[in-house]
């Protein structure tokens, strides 16, 4: 069973006192990185819920975002001339899957950072997505430990 509490020590005991035994955990914020530049991102996910969250997270970090719910719409958007600094793309997508959509986007010369963010976790799927052209294969959900270094790189902070 997962536990969020650290092993017992004097620091933890002191933190627990005066709060009914509950650890005072620092609340998560999106302030770990402050962007200096305007960054844009496209979220490609067929699931409304995941698309909402991924867009929300990117916006919370300061990016301007667009989203589409299938691979064909993503390819059409890029073909129309839209440019993005970052694309988050799922693997299993309606109409045109993420692997083929990625291949076509790269074939159009789009060299932006692409993260394959998917619930798939198999090695074969990982290799297929990377071979198609995503820079990073991420098993959902996309967490700050992966996203923040990417944003720092895109923002020229490294």
């Amino acid at each position, binding site marked *: 069973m*997962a536990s*969020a509490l650290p092993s017992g020590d004097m620091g933890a005991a002191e933190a627990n006192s005066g709060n009914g035994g509950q650890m005072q955990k620092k609340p*998560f914020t*999106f302030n770990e990185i402050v962007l200096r530049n305007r960054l844009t991102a496209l979220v490609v996910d067929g699931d409304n819920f995941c698309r909402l*969250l991924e867009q*929300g*997270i990117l916006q919370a970090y300061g990016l301007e975002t667009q989203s589409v719910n299938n691979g064909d719409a993503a390819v059409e958007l890029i073909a129309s001339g839209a440019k993005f600094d970052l694309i988050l793309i799922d693997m299993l997508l309606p109409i045109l899957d993420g692997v083929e959509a990625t291949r076509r986007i790269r074939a159009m010369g789009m060299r932006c950072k692409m993260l394959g963010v998917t619930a798939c*976790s198999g090695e074969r799927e990982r290799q297929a997505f990377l071979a198609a052209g995503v820079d990073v294969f991420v098993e*959902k*959900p996309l967490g700050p430990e992966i996203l923040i270094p990417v944003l720092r790189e895109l923002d020229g902070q490294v």
Partner: protein
Amino acid sequence: MVGTSLSQQLENYIQTMHDQGILDYHFDHVKALQNEENPRFLMEVISMFAHDAEAGIAHLTTLLNSAVVDFAKVISFVHQLKGSSSSIGGVRMALACRQIRHACDNMDKERCLQLLERMKQEYNSLKECLNIIFEMERSIVVANETRHRQP
């Protein structure tokens, strides 16, 4: 102040859910997306998750109880549920979905059906937890709205 007390109760409850392994830290990321411009965001997200999850589980149940199982479709719904449950921090439900995926790879219908029941149990635990959070959030929103209306 009533609002502050409710917020602390909510934080304590969420911590308890972390300790019990029902929610992981991704829930905290979702919660952090809520702001003054959209004070009901967490309630909306929880409602959306529950609606989509129940539809997905219903589809899975129908597919896996078919005489001939279309495992490709099963995998599609399982992935959707895995993605959404992991995104809201429902780590146990996401793990159950991963196990169903493995059973699909082996085209093992009976194993899929067993694991589907386990996944439903994990969903029910997660839903119960999220419902409590939903109600606590609603109380906080109402308390804040009442306070803002007072002269």
